[in-house]
Structure formats: structure tokens, C-alpha cells
């Protein structure tokens, strides 16, 4: 089986070489900058996975680290000011399947007048000037191959607290993934509350 090992060695060598080359060429996170510094779309990857790195991260379910958020948003301060989770910011949660992440427009409803000299609020204003939205990084979510559909609205209607699945967000600054949302977690809770545990309830 000498040839087999040879083939494997060759494969490893080529794979390593390609990866190194890719990294050197900046393909990993395809930072294809145009001459004027604006970003161009990668010709290879879709908006969902803009780079090879993103695709690999997606495959392994790796979430961005907290400090990667463009703005160090503090949930704690907002919760202390009694801003309800679903009334102003995550408005989709009460009415639809997806909670939604607020953009520049929602932030500026209050922050045109409140704390305008805070460096992070100034950042929001800068985004607006550039006609850009805040590139928030997703904290929760299922990778597509899980074939799970989660609907926020029925859970809110059933009186499930946000913190059941998202942890004590009101004590957090930048949101981190505090609860590992796997199937065991979902099914446990569904059993406790006598909710459906049929496959089709979530996998459809």
C-alpha cells in the first residue's frame, strides 16, 4: 500500500500549499480591496458566506467573539432604562418568526437626542453619514443544514422569557451566546411545558 500513502502525502502537501497560498493572497477572508479602498464583492462567495473563512466558520458553527461587534452595544444600560426587548429593538420577535436586529434608523430614534457625545453613538451617526447600516454579527442562529425552523412569535405568546434561550442578556454588555441551543435543550423545554415534540413541529 505504498502508493496509497504516497497519494495521501501528495494530497496533504498540495492541500497545505493551497491553503498557505490562499492565506497569503488574502483569499481566506477575501479582502479584495479596490483602489479607492471600497470593498468589492468576492467573485467566488455569496453574500451569505463572503469568504472561505466564513464558510468554514459556518460549517463548524463558530460564532464571532464578543469584541467583534462593530459597536460595543450594552444591553445592560438599555435594560436598566426599561427599554423592552421586543417593543423597540427586536420588534420581529412578537409578530414574526425572526426577532431582527435594529439598524441605524431604530438607534437614532432615541440617540439623535440621547447621549449623542458617547463615542459609540457617534459611530452610529458616522454610519448614517456613509449611508451604511451597522454590520452586526449574528450571535444566535442555526446553520442551514440543521433544517430547523424557529418561530419567535409563538414562544413569546406562550410567555417564554427571552432569558430562557438567550441567558441574562439584561446583565450583559455585548450579547454573547450564553445558552447552547441544541435539540436536547429544545425538547427538554417542550416536554416540560407539554408542547409538541413531533419532528414536524420544528423540522419542516
Amino acid at each position, binding site marked *: 500500500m505504498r502508493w496509497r*500513502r504516497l497519494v*495521501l*502525502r501528495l494530497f*496533504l502537501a498540495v*492541500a*497545505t500549499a493551497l*491553503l498557505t497560498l490562499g*492565506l497569503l493572497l488574502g483569499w*481566506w*477572508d*477575501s*479582502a479584495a480591496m479596490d483602489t479607492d479602498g*471600497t*470593498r*468589492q*464583492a468576492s467573485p467566488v462567495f*455569496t*453574500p451569505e458566506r*463572503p*469568504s472561505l*473563512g*466564513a464558510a*468554514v*466558520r459556518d460549517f*463548524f458553527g*463558530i460564532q*464571532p*467573539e464578543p469584541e*467583534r*461587534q*462593530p459597536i460595543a452595544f450594552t444591553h445592560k444600560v438599555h435594560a436598566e432604562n426599561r427599554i423592552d426587548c421586543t417593543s423597540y429593538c427586536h*420588534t*420581529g420577535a412578537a*409578530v*414574526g*418568526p*425572526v*426577532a*431582527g436586529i435594529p*439598524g*441605524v*434608523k431604530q438607534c437614532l430614534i432615541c440617540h439623535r437626542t440621547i447621549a449623542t457625545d458617547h463615542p459609540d453613538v457617534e459611530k452610529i451617526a458616522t*454610519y*448614517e453619514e456613509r*449611508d*451604511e*447600516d*451597522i*454590520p452586526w*454579527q449574528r450571535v444566535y442562529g442555526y446553520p442551514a443544514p440543521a433544517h430547523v425552523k424557529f418561530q419567535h412569535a409563538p414562544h413569546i405568546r406562550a410567555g417564554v422569557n427571552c432569558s430562557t434561550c438567550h441567558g441574562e442578556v439584561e446583565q450583559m454588555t455585548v450579547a454573547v451566546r450564553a445558552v447552547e441551543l441544541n435539540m436536547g435543550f429544545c425538547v427538554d423545554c417542550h416536554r416540560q411545558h407539554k408542547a409538541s415534540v413531533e419532528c414536524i413541529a420544528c423540522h419542516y
Partner: protein
Amino acid sequence: MDRRDFIKLSALTAGAAGLAGCGHPDHQLIRFLPEESWIPGVATWRPSLCPLCAAGCGVMARVMEGDAEVVRNGRTGLLRMGLVKKLEGNPAHPVNRGKLCARGQAAVQIVYHPDRIRQPLKRRGERGTGEFEPVDWDEALSTLAARLKQVLDDDPAGLAWLSRPLRGGKRVLVERFLATLAAPAPVYFELFDESVLRWANRLSFGREQMPTYTLSVANYVLGLSADFLGTWNSPVAQAIGYGEFRQGRPGRRGKFVQVEPRVSQTGANADEWIPIRPGTEGALALGLAHVLLNEARRPTTAAGTAGERIEGWLQGLPEWTPEAVAEQTGIEAERIRRLARELIAHEPAVVIAGGAALAQTNGLATALAVNALNALLGCVGALGPVRFTPQPESTGLAPPHRTLRALVQKILSRPESPVKLLLLYEANPVFATPPAWQVAAALDRVPFVVSFGSFLDDTSILADLVLPDHVFLESWMDDVPESGTEPAVVSLAAPAMRPLHNTRAMPDVLLDLSRRVGGRLNEALPWKSYEELLRARFDALARRAGADADAFWKQALERGGWWSDNGGTRAAAPRHAAATTRQIRYQPAEMDGSVEEFPFHFLPYASQAFYDGTTAHLPWLQELPDVLTTAMWGSWVELNPQTAERLGIRQGDLVDVTSRHGTLQAPVILSTGIAPDVVAMPVGQGHRAFTRYASRRGANPISVLAPLEEPETGALAWAATRVQIRRAGVGRLVLFSGGLSRFPHPEER
């Protein structure tokens, strides 16, 4: 793999995963500020219209929030906006009543096509090379306005408009635009144009339009080469009626016989398939009429004007005995008598002729013969299966094929083209005309060609300036279906989504252009936008219906159009045709090429996926297996197995198909559903240039067609070419099922 290699491989994978943490927001696409707010994950349905064929079906577009990759002010980024994700039939629309064909389902791919033109372009390289460079709208429009002024100062006859046949507001706008400038009338072109049948209906019934077949009231259908369940006339409406005809009436199942040289998708549904010699369908109709008049003693006057159009009708068609017809058509006399008896026994019975039957030099005579037969059967009128949809405005068009040829001849008549500026919109005549028409050579001599298309195709690649239109889901849409519905319909739809790219609606560009040119155009075209024009049209409709204009408009926008709910404007009876004693004599069809040298009839047919080729750029449709052969992603030639054996050709072999006008190559599919002296080929592939999915894929059957035409309407007789075939090697077929049969059986190996 041993342990050591496994560890190495694992280390490599882990390394990759570790590196994966290097992602950074700065390295992702920027997000633009959204212009609209959506509840994420919740869909709304908005009415729109399918633009892909003349049936004019209403669709519902499922719109949801999503991230679109767009360019704004020179920057690429993601924009959160309402995006159309799916199309279904509009349940309220009278034409398709909630149903939609495969082409309509795939139409959503037009929006997100990777090769859509995203901004105005001007030609950079040589003509036809497809080298363009982006320009901004202002520059593009001022270039065009300057050109237009120059042409108008010189001679308004130097302006030409070439598009697919238009209806509704667009037709009004374009014709008024040209008329005000004293420019020649627009040239409309479509390969499967039905001017022969329209003209025949005008002569027979006084209505120059396509008929509406209400199959749900029929008991017997005799099809003559009409693919009415697949591609012809209003296929979705007809398929719904056909369903009721077969299964919707307990205890009464209609009988369906299809007569055609090759079994079409429609023929495959029939109780009986009768192969007929191409171009003799009219003779069969006259033979059937002969039996009805002489053996069943139907009075000749029962057919009214439609009968008077046929030479010899009033004498009882003495020449057209079943025996004489049998000799022409290849159908036994006894069978013809039986068909005639069945037509009487199963009243109301209807005969439907279309497609290749009318695409012959004797197409008009065939259509008139079938009209007379239908009139004799008493099936034409407000209660019979053949009806005419009331039209709010005239449907008559100058014969499209003739006007295109006239344009080409005008351009080629002088060394320097008298046409200086050509406006091109959604027509691809370079692809869809026989080479002898010389369309490409003519267009190449026009000094300045402007295309409004969303894609570069065989024709628009010749353009000097491309001003991309919005696609249908981004535009104000209206349509006036000519057939397929009993009440009169004027469809209407607001844009279902915002434009993705830097495009502008063609009607708005024309209005902008008129403002730039000024003068009489300002008075003739007072609207600021196409929306205003449509509103004005609907206000006029509301006045006629005695309704409140605002409520009328709002309701039309919600439903997808206006149609009469009460019986007031239901399908009308035929009018009496203008009194004329002109009679048409049935002549045998003329075929191009001698039987000895070119032994096969060549039968191109409308592809279920691509129709006339206009949808070949949509990958879903390339991937759609043909209903009868399961072939996809290419062209093929259908051949009878007996013929193939005689010529030593096997399934998958590449053959040369040669006519007097050209040669093409395509692989063979053997089919028992085709007459031994006929070879058939779907139209739609073989584009020289039409996006990454259709360019240089397969072969174009139109490229070997003879330029024969039906003499009265000038319509191309696209089924009148004879060919020879010769094996040229081994071809490549992609079949959805039975694909493995190409490989030798294990025992043969």
C-alpha cells in the same frame, strides 16, 4: 490511511478551523441603510403579471425581507429590502385562475440573473464582440436625445422601433411617440406570431384576434398540430378547461384526438394519435367538412361567412371526398369518415388548429378550412367552445413578419442605411429569423442601435447603447389578454419590489426622452411617468364602467387588474365579416427542397421550457427535463427508430441536419411518436450570445429554415423546410431518466 496520516489530516482541519476565527466585520460586505422596513421572516403576496408569453397570466409574488447584493453609488454592499422569492398563479385572475406554467414559475430567476445588465452601457469594442463600458444615465440619455434630434432634423423616417408585439399602455405610448415624431410605425416581431390565425378569424368571423377555447363545454376535441396544453395560445387557461373536459364532469368524459406528424406534449394526452403528412391539415378539415355536408346532410349555410370563404363550399366540396383526402394526408378514408361521425356524435365538438399546421405556405387556407368546419359544427359563439374575448381596444397589428422584412429590405436597399437610429426592445430577430432574411446584416448597417433589454442576446449585442429596463417585478405592468378568458380583462400591477440595479423602466425612459426632445412630444405625451399613463387609462375605464376612479384603481391594484364580474362583457359572438365575395382556394403546401435530395420534413416546435428561445437564459428551465424525452441542457433531433435503423443511426449519435439553407449538428433521440419521414427539433437553444447559461449551447433549428412565407400575411412558414440527415459522430445527450442506457449493458461489455 494509517494513524499518523489521520493525525496529520486532523491537525490540518483543526488549523483551518482555528484560522476561521480571523473573520472581521471590516472584511464583509458593507450594509446599506434600508429604504423600507419589514418584519423579518413574514411574507406578503403582491400581484404581478407574467411577461413570458402572449397568454398574459396573472401571478402573485411572494415578497419577503432579504439581503440583496447591490451596487449603490459605486459601492458594492448588502441592502436589506423586500425581495420576490416565489411566483404562483393569481387565483383571482380570469386567465390562469391560480395556476402557472413552468416558464412562469421560473420567471423569478430573471430578477436575480447573474448576467443581468446592471447599468447603462455603451459599446467599446467592435460591434458584436460584446465589449461595453458603463456610462451613467444622464450621459446615456443625452447621447440618445442628441442622436434622436439629429435624425428628426434630417428625416424622421430614419427612426425605427423594433420590439415584440406590445399591448396595453406600452403599445399606446410607443405608437404615439413614433406617430408624433412622424416616424414609421413600430415593427413588432415574434417567431411564433399568430397573424395567420388572426387574419383567418377576421375573414371568417370578423374578429382579428386569437380565439378563446372554452374546453369545459366541449365533448370532443380534434387537435390539428396545436400544442394547446403546452405552448400555444393561452396554455394555462386551456389546460384548466381541458381538466374539466376530461375529469370535471362526472359521467361525461370528453374524447380527444390529436392529428399531428409528431406527438407533442398535448398529443401525448390524447385518446388517439393520428400522424398526418405535414402541411395537409387543411385538406383533412375539408375532407371532414365534405362528410358532414354530404353524408350527414348538414346545410352549407350553417357555416355562415366562414363557409363562404372556402372555394367550393356552397357546392358541398365535391373534390374533397375522403378518398381524395386520404391520398393527400396519408390518413385512411375510413378513418376520416369515422372522425366525422364522432364529431357529430359528440357535439359540441371543436377542432383546434395551430402551430405547425398554420406555419405553412397554405396556412391561411388551413385556418379558414378549420374555421368553416367549426362553424359547421356550431361550436363558434357565445355558448360554444370557440369564443372571442371582448377587447377594450383594437387588437389588429400590421403583419409582424412582413413588416420586419420590409424594414430589413429598406435598410439594405441603399449602400448607406436609410434607418439611422433603431430602438430595440425585447425582440431577438437575429436568433429567430431564417438566415436568408439577412436581419443581422441589416442591423449591422444601422449607424446607431439602442437596446432596452435586460440581457445581451444575439440581437442586442449589436447595440451601441444599452439602456436596461427594470424587470417585470420591478415595473408598473399592464396587459390586455387577447384570449384565454371570457370576461374582458385589463391586467394591472404595481412594482412588487424595488429595482435591484441601476436600471430604468423603458416607458419612463421614452417619456424622459420626449421631455428632452420637447416640442410636440410634450403635448402628445403629457404623462410624467408610466404610472400616470396607466392611471389615466384606468380612469377612462372607470368612467366607462361608471365607477369611482380612486376605488376602481385601488381595487385593480389589489386584485391584479380589472375584469367584469357580471355577464355584461362576457365572450362575444363572432361579428359578421365585411361583406366580400372573396374566396380562398386551398393549395397544397409548398415545401423547400426536393423529396429526392431532402427526404425529411423538418419540424421545429416551440419548446416547453424556452418557447421561442426567450427564456433559454434561465437555468431552472435549462434544467427542466423535456416532458417527452427527459432531455435537458441542450438540443436534440427526434427521429423515428425505423428511419434511424435504415440510416445506421443510434440514440445519442450526432447528426448533420442539412437543408438548402444551412446545416446544424445535434444528437439524436429516437421516438416512436414521430412519422418516419419527419425529423423534429425544439426551438430555443443555439444562441450565439445569451448569458452564461445559453450561449453556444445546442443548435438553432431556425438557422436552417427556408424563407418561405404564407403569401397573404407574410408570416414565416417555419414548418415548410425539407432536410437530409447524415450521421456525423457521437453526440452528447443529457437525459433525466434512462441516462444510463447510453452505457453498455454489463453483459455486452
